[in-house]
């Protein structure tokens, strides 16, 4: 729609469709305790993308057979509301994309959480996207990590996630849904700020190999921006 109208993604002042600069992330905010019955929860807003994450645990395993004697079992369930995007679409929890993201979250969170501190238990994380305006992958990671912080679960570090992509000749940080659908390639990175390690990296087609490092740099800048906001938010909460 925008391409047909000839709308450029950067206007004469060099601003994007929502008035941001190319390397500026969307405004990020979090409300803790969104689900009172859970052990930890957060309502995460990344621009117009709204994700709600809740953590139940450490609690005894639902099935004794899945119990691990020396560490916790991390289980993540990811789902998207049917009303999340402009067109209503029923998406089941075992939809391929949802399953893939659940597994990615599970793998990453198992590395970040100090599972050896909670043997024979289960930490269940539920991530639900209420509104999808692009960047649901990075928003889900951020929300899941913040919910774990709210639950007081021991972690290696507090990671921050962000995305970046190329639209035409421009490298933009934290793409919204319009930019995401028309971009040439998008990278989502999850960074551990203390050790500067990338715990999760995901690329969507098609990204030119020459631009890969610059897009990754932009994603990491976005991660650091989000980390500053998260830190300030947490200090305010405490």
């Amino acid at each position, binding site marked *: 729609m925008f391409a047909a109208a000839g709308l450029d993604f950067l206007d004469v002042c060099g601003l994007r469709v929502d008035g941001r600069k190319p390397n500026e992330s969307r405004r990020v905010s979090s409300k803790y305790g969104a689900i009172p019955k859970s052990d930890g929860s957060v309502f995460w807003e990344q621009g117009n993308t709204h994700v709600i994450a809740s953590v139940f645990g450490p609690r005894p395993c639902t099935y004794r057979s899945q119990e691990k004697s020396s560490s916790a079992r991390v289980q993540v369930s990811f789902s998207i509301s049917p009303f999340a995007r402009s067109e209503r679409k029923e998406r089941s929890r075992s939809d*391929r*994309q949802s*399953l*893939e993201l659940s*597994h990615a979250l599970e793998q990453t969170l198992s590395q970040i959480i100090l599972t050896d501190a909670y043997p024979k238990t289960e930490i269940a994380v539920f991530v639900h996207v209420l509104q999808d305006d692009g960047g649901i992958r990075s928003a889900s990671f951020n929300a899941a990590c913040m919910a774990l912080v709210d639950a007081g679960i021991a972690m290696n570090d507090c990671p921050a996630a962000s995305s970046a992509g190329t639209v035409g000749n421009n490298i933009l940080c934290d793409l919204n849904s319009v930019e995401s659908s028309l971009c040439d390639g998008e990278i989502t990175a999850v960074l551990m700020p203390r050790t500067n390690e990338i715990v999760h990296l995901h690329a969507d*087609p098609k990204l030119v190999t020459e631009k890969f490092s610059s897009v990754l740099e932009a994603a990491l800048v976005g991660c650091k921006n989000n980390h500053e906001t998260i830190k300030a938010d947490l200090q305010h909460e405490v």
Partner: protein
Amino acid sequence: MAHRLAPVSCTANVEFVKECAARDLRIDGRGTDGMRRIKLTHAHDGSTVECQLGQTRLVVCLSCDVGIPYADRPNEGTVVFHADFSMAAYLQKPERLENQVAVMLERAFKRSKALDIESFCIYSGKRAWRLQVDVRVLHYDGNIMDAAVLGVSTALSSFKRPDATVVDGRVKVYSALERSPVPLTLHALPVSCTIGWVKLLGNKIIPITDPNLAEEAAL
């Protein structure tokens, strides 16, 4: 397999892989950037390809059928990727790998537009080809992604679908004897490379290409 007496995730095996990596060696004598031997075998009708990457073996089967295109994409056909790990049930959580492989193949071939699914359209809005790509894993010895992408690339390049035209508003599919089958339109052949990171003491990290099952346990 009978040659493996201890589980690959046991400490002794993991430590051995790490010691080898520290000396720029691999268990099977490759360098850290060496790939295993690749062998691709075609069936005579071009719809089945067996891919062997070292000891990792899988079979890619392609089949196509006339279906109805999605309402919001009337000029495109469909391609469905499916991975089956039932013969590699010795793995933990094979359904997770099945999903990962299927999503990766979809991303590599369909979402990247390497495979042209607009050429699958027979009658716009009513009939289009539906291609089913089945990847069946026969033996898992690490690095299933590269083997799957290799196998599917080869299978798609050699596969020929039947020819079909619209005659008086009805679709007519020709057999191989009436009209020769048509190859698929591939704009690019994706190439995949898997690199594992072995973490040693002192925060030293060694990258190894094409890890096998024993090395995957040490990553």
